[in-house]
Every structure is written in structure tokens, then in C-alpha cells.
């Protein structure tokens, strides 16, 4: 054991530790300074890619959502876009708007989940409780639109399953006004709190070159000054006709990542308001599938404003081919690479989630910093282990 080895002790911040989520951080610590940290992930590896190869295209929709429970709409959207590009099908405009509305609502309450986790990592149970309490009105909005709290399975290849309930826009407006008022209180207690600023400013700085070199995604990338957002780089669904500008910060430290998420909440609220005001009328399911539905069910669909999934979609066979779809999930860019071989099951589904691309940050960021910085940096990365392990 060399002399340096002698003085360092190895801290296993294991799966059962308030600062580690579902993974183990093996930290080599010398006194109060962290010499080196190695993430040991794989505790929630539930083999989504292997299971996708034995399920039909429609059965994969709920499977793809489970890993990222805090932000299911964007994962569902990513997979459905990949299938639609394979089929060469486009969802009708109204369905695209509905998808954008649900994706943005899911982004807002996923950011609040991330800010809540950062709050409890810094030690303030109030920030955690406030963030998780203010998630609830948004979950109610999503529940009104789709019927489920978190796992919506709302988007199917070719459209969406339900239409907008009446009076949704007014309720959404009420929730957003409440959230804006709350964000002002957050600034006094949480974001501008002198203790939080002392703990997060200048901690875990990610320079612009490192962020680009390591392929980091999402708010962690935009906090280092790189103005890259898939909604603006490769606009999908209804984003081209909504005026959307990317939120970035320059410093790249924990506070900047926190502030990017706060500004993105405000940005998403504006996007949902605009989408709800400009939503066109029309069918919510692509006619390739809706003409396969027997006429008796079709009036039921118009009258109930819901979709009955046709048999043609359940046993969907896609000719051999491959497609790639990119979606801006709450935690970053989500890539789906789908290879089909004509059978009802996908031949190979590759799902690279944003948290998996942020794993490289642990080893890079948490180096020669304090032991107390480990939870601060971990919380600011908004890293969701089940999504990274898939």
C-alpha cells in the first residue's frame, strides 16, 4: 500500500444511503477530500432491450415508459416516433398538439421531481416537500387528460388514445398561475437561500469543452453554455409552429444546472399555454388505423372522444428497415434506434436514455472535492438510476 493509499479510506455510498439513489458510489476519500469516485450502476437493470424483442410493437409502449417513471410521456413519445418513422406514417395535427401538451406537462413535473431530490440532498426537507407538493396539481392535469398518474401510455403509433376533456385549458391556466406564484416563494426559501448558494455555486463545474467532449445531454449540457435542445435542433411533433427558445447558462456549476431547470419550467408552461390556444380540430388517429375500425365502433369513438385500438395495430407487422428518433426528454436527449424484420416483434430496439449518457459525469465531476459535495453534485445532475440502467 503506497503512502497515499495508506491515508485514504474507501467509502461505499451504497444502494441504501440517502445520497446515492439506486446505485453505489465507491468513493476514495482522504480526510474530507474525495480523491476519486467510481459509480457502480446496474442495480435496477431490468433488461428492457431484451424484453422488447419478445413483445409486439404495441406491447413495447408500456415497457418503454417504466424505466423513467418521473418522465414517462417523453419516453413514450420517442418510441412512438421511431415506429412511425419505420411505418412512414405521420400522426394527425391535433394528435401532435396533444402529444406536445402532455410531453411538456410531464417535463414540468419531472423537473420539480429533480429539484425536490436536489433539495433533500442539500439537507432541506422543506424544499423536497414543496417540490413534491407542487408536482401534484400537474399530475392531476395529466390524470385528467390520460387517466393515469404517472404511467400514461397515452401515445400509440399513429395518434393518441384520448381527446382533450372540455375545460382543460382553463384548469391548466389555473395550475400554471398557482405554480408561477409558488416559484416566487421558492426563490426566497430555496434557490436564493444563502446556504444553498454557498453549497452549489462554484461546485462541480463542467466546462463547455468537457460537456461537448463527454457527450453530456439535457439541462446539464445547457448549463455549461451549449445551446443544444432537440426540440429546436430537430423539431418533432408540434414544436416547429410553437416559438421556442433554448434556455442556457454559462457557469456550468450546480447552481446553473438548478437554474436551467427552473427556467425550463417557465418555458414549458408558456409552451403548453400556446399549444392549448393554437390546437387545431380533426381526428386524433391516423386514417390508416382508423379505417380498420368497424363502423359501429367508429361512432362510439366520436361520441366518447376516445380511441378503440384496432386489431390491425395490435398485430402490426413492419417491413424490414431501421429508424432513429431523437426526443428531448426532461433529463436530456433520448435516442431510439429501431430495427424491424417484418415479424410482429422488433428485431432490435436500442434505447439510449439521457441518464445513461450522463453517467460519465460522476467520474469526471466528483474529483478532489469535499465529501459534502457528493450529494450536492449528485442532486444537481438529476440522475435517475432506473432510467440509466434500463
Amino acid at each position: 500500500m503506497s503512502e497515499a493509499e495508506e491515508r485514504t479510506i474507501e467509502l461505499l455510498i451504497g444502494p441504501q444511503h440517502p445520497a446515492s439513489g439506486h446505485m453505489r458510489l465507491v468513493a476514495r476519500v482522504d480526510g474530507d477530500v474525495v480523491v476519486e469516485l467510481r459509480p457502480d450502476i446496474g442495480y435496477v437493470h431490468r433488461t428492457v432491450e431484451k424484453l422488447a424483442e419478445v413483445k409486439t410493437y404495441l406491447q413495447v409502449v408500456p415497457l418503454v415508459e417504466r424505466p423513467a417513471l418521473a418522465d414517462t410521456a417523453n419516453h413514450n413519445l420517442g418510441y412512438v416516433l421511431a415506429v412511425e418513422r419505420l411505418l412512414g406514417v405521420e400522426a394527425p395535427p391535433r394528435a401532435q398538439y396533444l402529444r406536445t401538451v402532455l410531453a411538456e406537462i410531464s417535463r414540468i413535473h419531472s423537473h420539480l421531481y429533480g429539484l425536490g431530490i436536489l433539495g433533500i440532498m442539500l439537507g432541506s426537507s422543506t424544499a423536497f416537500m414543496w417540490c413534491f407538493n407542487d408536482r401534484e396539481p400537474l399530475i392531476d392535469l395529466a390524470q385528467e387528460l390520460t387517466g393515469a398518474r404517472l404511467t400514461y401510455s397515452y401515445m400509440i403509433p399513429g395518434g393518441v388514445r384520448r381527446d382533450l376533456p372540455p375545460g382543460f385549458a382553463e384548469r391548466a391556466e389555473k395550475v400554471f398561475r398557482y405554480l408561477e406564484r409558488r416559484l416566487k416563494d421558492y426563490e426566497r426559501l430555496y434557490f436564493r437561500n444563502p446556504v444553498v448558494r454557498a453549497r452549489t455555486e462554484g461546485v462541480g463545474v463542467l466546462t463547455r469543452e468537457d460537456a461537448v467532449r463527454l457527450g453530456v445531454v439535457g439541462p446539464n449540457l445547457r448549463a455549461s453554455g451549449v445551446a443544444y435542445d432537440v426540440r429546436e435542433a430537430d423539431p418533432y411533433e408540434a414544436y416547429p409552429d410553437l416559438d421556442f427558445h433554448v434556455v442556457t447558462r454559462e457557469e456550468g456549476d450546480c447552481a446553473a444546472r438548478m437554474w436551467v431547470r427552473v427556467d425550463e419550467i417557465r418555458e414549458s408552461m408558456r409552451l403548453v399555454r400556446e399549444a392549448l390556444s393554437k390546437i387545431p380540430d380533426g381526428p386524433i388517429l391516423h386514417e390508416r388505423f382508423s379505417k380498420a375500425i368497424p363502423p359501429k365502433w367508429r361512432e362510439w369513438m366520436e361520441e366518447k372522444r376516445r380511441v378503440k385500438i384496432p386489431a390491425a395495430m395490435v398485430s402490426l407487422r413492419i417491413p424490414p428497415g431501421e429508424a432513429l428518433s431523437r426526443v428531448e426528454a426532461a433529463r436530456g436527449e433520448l435516442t431510439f434506434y429501431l430495427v424491424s424484420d417484418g415479424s410482429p416483434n422488433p428485431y432490435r430496439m436500442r434505447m439510449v436514455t439521457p441518464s445513461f449518457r450522463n453517467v460519465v459525469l460522476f467520474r469526471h465531476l466528483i474529483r478532489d472535492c469535499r465529501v459534502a459535495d457528493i450529494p450536492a453534485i449528485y442532486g444537481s445532475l438529476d440522475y435517475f438510476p432506473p432510467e440509466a440502467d434500463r
Partner: protein
Amino acid sequence: MMVMLDLLLDLLLSPWVFVPLVYPGLVSAFALLLFIIWAERKMAGKVQMRYGPLYVLKPLGGIIQLVVDRIRYLFQEPIVPEEADAAAFVLAPIALFTACLLPVVVIPVGPEFYAFRSDISLLAFLALSSLAPAFTVAVGWASSNKFSLIGGLREGYLALAYEVPLVVSALAGAALYGTMDLVEMAEAQSSVWGVCLNPLAALVFLLLVYMETSRFPFEISEAESEIVMGPFTEYSGILYGLCMGASYVKMYALSLLFTVMFLGAWHPLPPPTGTVLDPILPGAVVFAKALAVMLCGTLLRAVYQRYRIDQALKISWHTLTPLSLASLALSALVGVA
């Protein structure tokens, strides 16, 4: 037989037995423990827009939640890990609890009702209260767990950081009245309270009370999100009850001292009721003020996050120590005038 009873009653009511046992001593500390942690969870709940413990006793808002927790600790299996040093593991928390409770003996209850009086009783209090960090380090070492070792060492760092300015600001308070005897100090505050004379010393003293008992902005030795429960990680059952209670009891002792020195101990004096309780009434005023100080101390849990240890040390060495020296100069000035 009756004589025996009277003798016993006199003995119980005599200050030497009453003070350590009942009022500022054991019984009131335990009763306070049960109340203050419940109050903390309820206040944190109120700030966080929720109820806090409720269904234990719904009409009274779950006030006996801590009684229930203590019962659970009592019947929980006290685990002693093999690689831990069994004797030190069990005795250290008991020593820690007594070390935190010991200084309370010096606090006078009334103008002529006190257990221990000497012209340097303030120094006796400070000496006794500086025993506790040593036992926290012992607790941290005894449970042979990396996290608790770090927690214990952190307590060691912090102990140095807060003892020095604490003693200096206490001396500044004493210099106001020119004496170190707590009873004379209390008497001298009949007209104007210590806080108005030297607010700087009071503020510094209060901040250091929060740092010493690891209240929220400085909850570093048992920082939950970094080193699980600090020195008390390996403790379960009633041993953990003792450890968790120790920091609250130390806060109780220090807030009593803060009340006696700065908040005009028992002034305004309650009217004498002529009953046997007569000498103890001033103590009730001191208890009420100390309780107020503790409640606002425990409210900090709902407001602040947690400092890093180097920031906390920087705060105490760079700002609080010079401030306490300045308060010493200020009280010298005020004393002269």
C-alpha cells in the same frame, strides 16, 4: 411514620435534591424531550403545508407521538455489532447524555433557591458543557463504522470551532454585570435585560448554541445526506433514543443559560402566592423563556439547508470569533458607563 414523610418531603423540596432531580434537571429534561421533538415535527409540517404526526391522538394533534416513538425504542432489540467495542459502545451514549445534562445543575431556579452557587458558577457551566463533544467522538469511534468515525471526527472539528467563541461571548455577557455568579447576574437584570445592554454577545451566543447542538444550518456531525446518521449510525433501540435526546438536552441546558444571562432570568418576578411552590415560580418564567428560545431553534430545521464543514468552520473562525471579541469590548464599554 408521619415524621418520616415530612422529612422525605422536606428533603425532596430542598434545593439540593429538587434542582438536579425535578426542575431544571432530569424530569423536566425528559418531559421537554417528548414535547420539543413533537413541536419540531409539527412546525416543520406546518411550514411544509402538511399535518405532521396526527393520528396517534387525533384531538390533540398527535402530541404523544414522541411517547410512542420512545416506547418503540424501548422494545426494539438493541443491536451491538461484533466488531464494535461492546463496553464503549453501550456506555458512551449514556456518558454523552449525562454530560449534556450535567451543566443544568448550575442554573439557579429562584433568587434564593439554587443548588450550586459560587462566584464562578458561569465557568463551572461552560466547563461541564464542553465535556459532551469528547463523548460524541467516543461514540463515533466505538461503533467501528466508517461513517460514524467521520461523524465523530467532524464533531471534534466543530467542538474546537464553537467552544472558543462561546466562552468569549459568555464572558462578554458576564462582564456586563461585573460578576460570574449566575444568581447575581439574574438579580442585576431586574431593570433592563442583558440583551438590550449587549445585543452582539447575545446574537453570537445564540448562533453558537445552534452550532454546538448541530441545529439546522450547521447540522454537520450527523449530516443525513452525507454520512448517514453521523456518530449514531450503528445505534438502535433505547441507545439511539439517548443519543438523539442528547443534542436536544444540550440545547435545553444552553438555552437555560442564555435565558439567565441575556433574557433577564426571572424578571418580571411573578407575585408570591404564599404556598409551598413559592420559591419555584421564578423557575417557571425561566423555563418558559428557554422554551421559546428552543422552539425558534428547532424551527430552523424547516428553513435552512446544511453547510459544508469547511464553510461552517470558516464562519465560526472568521466571523464569530472576532464578533465575540468585539462584543467583549462592547460590554466593557457598557459596563463602565
